[in-house]
């Protein structure tokens, strides 16, 4: 078994510590993804392992040998590096480039032998570059070039393969093909692979374990499931994410939510009636605007429910696939009548969630400003034989405002919020004779908005 041990490594540029107290051990067949934000020391770690940057402290032992105690030509027999981008001077052919991978195994005056050519041919076949052999490297596309460079690394017949953001300039198909290839090398040829990868989803899909760096040191290390949690991602990348297991690839994937805006909290409650993922965008948008968002009734496991959980929004919830009970409807009424604004998304309505719509109508009748997002016509999402459609007509009559797209909502809601605030001020601070004027002014504004 081949082991690569990094022990107590500290790296500095001048007096600035770039890496501190980094220790881990990997064995052959491991595909380790190094992830972390910019400036967390990922590339520096790779540089210290590849002997480009000597650590200030600590050791790196490969197969019982300190890599800083051997000649560079001996290290090159054991370790190959695929850089982020290869700027190759002079127009060497692809085959020339891959043949250079044989250099560590050749004597100074030796020409490439038949066996070298065989090894190179095999490497190029594996990376699907043999047909490019005679082409000048500078005329190849980014993906082809990167595959040629990987072939060169394979021609070194290394035990360790280091890749520094190998996918940066590649399109989707090239990214997948290269990761497939690297994974195969790992499992079939028992290479140790360490790769700096920016794309968390690709890292999760291909790596056997992950190393998460933050602020020059290891924040978390281990299996993909243990490292790639939304808590860890939040702590390291400062981004809210949803981490799920893909049923297709059976690997984790990460959905980033946009970084939260630092807006002033608004002392104004908005209740959102949604479901089946129709409310996620709206919830997030209003949450970011600083409103006190509530939601419900939502079934557990519903996408909107998960969003609400993530945003820590108070929610009235119901068991999965269950109709709304009387108890839930009572809780909903309590919640909704305390709100200043109600939003109904274009959720499909069946007998199970009809109570939501009924409660919204009740709220509209009580004079609570109600917005209905009518993105999909109600007829095509009414599974109650017309009851929901009738309730919608009723809603409109009761003064609910219908809009076509969720993106229009925040502006309208902000306007409503400002008017409500203005009215509050009018009632408390402004002398009597001004009140009437203001009231009529805001009422006019309301009417204009409705028409």
């Amino acid at each position, binding site marked *: 078994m081949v082991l690569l041990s990094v022990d107590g490594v500290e790296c500095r540029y001048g007096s600035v510590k770039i890496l501190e107290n980094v220790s881990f051990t990997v064995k052959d067949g491991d595909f380790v993804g190094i992830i972390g934000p910019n400036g967390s020391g990922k590339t520096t770690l790779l540089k210290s392992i590849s002997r480009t940057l000597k650590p200030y402290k600590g050791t790196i032992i490969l197969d019982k040998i300190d890599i800083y105690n051997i000649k560079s030509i001996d290290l090159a027999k054991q370790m190959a*590096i695929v850089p982020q981008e290869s700027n190759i001077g*002079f127009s*060497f052919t692809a085959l020339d480039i891959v043949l250079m991978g044989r250099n560590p195994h050749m004597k100074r005056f030796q020409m490439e032998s038949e066996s070298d050519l065989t090894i190179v041919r095999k490497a190029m076949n594996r990376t699907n570059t043999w047909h490019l052999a*005679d082409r000048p490297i500078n005329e190849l596309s980014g993906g082809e070039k990167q595959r040629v460079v990987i072939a060169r690394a394979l021609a070194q017949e290394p035990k360790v393969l280091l890749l520094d953001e190998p996918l940066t300039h590649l399109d989707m198909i090239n990214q997948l093909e290269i990761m497939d290839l690297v994974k195969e090398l790992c499992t079939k040829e028992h290479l140790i692979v360490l790769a700096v990868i920016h794309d968390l989803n690709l890292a999760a899909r291909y790596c056997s374990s992950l190393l998460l760096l933050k602020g020059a040191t290891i924040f978390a290390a281990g299996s993909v499931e243990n490292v790639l949690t939304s808590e860890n991602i939040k702590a390291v990348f400062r981004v809210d994410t949803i981490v799920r297991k893909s049923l297709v690839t059976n690997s984790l994937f990460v959905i980033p939510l946009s970084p939260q805006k630092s807006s002033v909290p608004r002392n104004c409650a908005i209740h959102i009636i949604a479901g089946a993922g129709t409310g996620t965008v709206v919830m997030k948008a209003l949450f970011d605007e600083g409103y006190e968002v509530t939601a419900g009734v939502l079934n557990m496991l519903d996408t909107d429910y998960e969003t609400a959980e993530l945003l820590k929004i108070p929610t009235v919830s119901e068991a999965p696939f269950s109709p709304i009970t009387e108890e839930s409807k009572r809780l909903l009424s309590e919640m909704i009548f305390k709100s200043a604004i109600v939003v109904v998304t274009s959720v499909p309505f069946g007998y199970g969630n009809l109570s939501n719509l009924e409660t919204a109508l009740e709220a509209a009748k009580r004079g609570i400003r109600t917005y209905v997002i009518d993105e999909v016509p109600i007829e095509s999402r009414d599974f109650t034989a017309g009851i929901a459609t009738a309730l919608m007509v009723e809603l409109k009559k009761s003064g609910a405002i219908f809009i076509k797209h969720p993106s229009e909502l925040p502006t309208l809601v902000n306007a409503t919020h400002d008017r409500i605030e203005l009215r509050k001020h009018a009632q408390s601070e402004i002398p009597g004779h001004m009140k009437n004027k203001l009231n009529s002014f805001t009422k006019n504004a309301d009417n204009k908005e409705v028409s």
Partner: protein
Amino acid sequence: MTADKVESKYSKRHSRWKLILLALIIALIAAIILCLNIGYAPIKFSDILTILGKQIPLLNGSINSSSVSPVNQAIILQIRLPRILAGAIVGAGLAAAGVMYQGVFRNPMADSYLLGASAGASLGYTLTAIYAGSLALTFLGLGIFQIIAFIGAVLTVFLVYFMSRVGNKVPITTLLLSGIVVNIFILALQTVFELRSGKALIGIVAWIAGGFSNITWLDIYAVFPFVMIGIVLAYFFTKDLNMLSMGDDTAQHLGVNTERVRQILLLISSLITGAVVSISGVIGFVGLIIPHMTRLVIGPDHRILLPASAIVGAIFLILCDSLARVATGASELPVGVITALAGTPFFIYLLRKRKTSYSL
């Protein structure tokens, strides 16, 4: 071309390279004989071959040289041959040094002049002409002028090199920048001394213009070892040069001790440059353009590029110098003018002929 053909082409590459070198050596010999014929005194080819054959130890017994006049023999052996051989050695040295500079610095503009070699040599020559021209000092067959010019060239390159050291490494950009700065500085000094040089000025200007008009066999004996041994030593590092073209990091990862290779090649190429500049003065263009031209034709592999460029440089400079000798009748043109006039159009032709862009 199918991939299988590619494979067989590569396994035959070594013999192809040998063939290229053989052809170039034959061309060099042909160029030497052709140029021996050029000059005011008309000398027949048969006489030239007789005179040369007489100099070859095993052959001389069987050659009858009685038909050749002693004057012609002296013209060939004492005037034309040393001059032509000097052209070959200087051309080979400049071109080989150019290959090394371009490879080591991954820069198409890098040559010995950019790094200050010629400026240093010129300053050395100027100082000698003003203050020490009468000293009859010789060393290894070199006169005082050559010695000081040689020292000036080598010192300047190393001054530039150590000026641009950052920590343990020599970044290309700082190197080229300090090269330019040092060049400007030395040029300023040069101007100051030229203004104070009085009668010596004519000699200085003529030497700086470059040429072979005062070459003797002693110059050749002194410079040939530097160029020959330099090129042979540099050949040890040609595979490293190939890998250096992919950047220092990648070269290191492929097992190249980059900093050591860089220092050794810089030393070798500076010694070569210093040696050739000391006998020929400043001849531009060869070190820059010959490696590019050769690379365009035979490819970028330094294992063939270095020796091939050296021979092409030798042929090129012999032909240019012969043109310089006869082009304008009585007075000679500086050979540097010819190298530029002859080389530029040919280089542009090669550059335009390639469909794809030429990248370094």
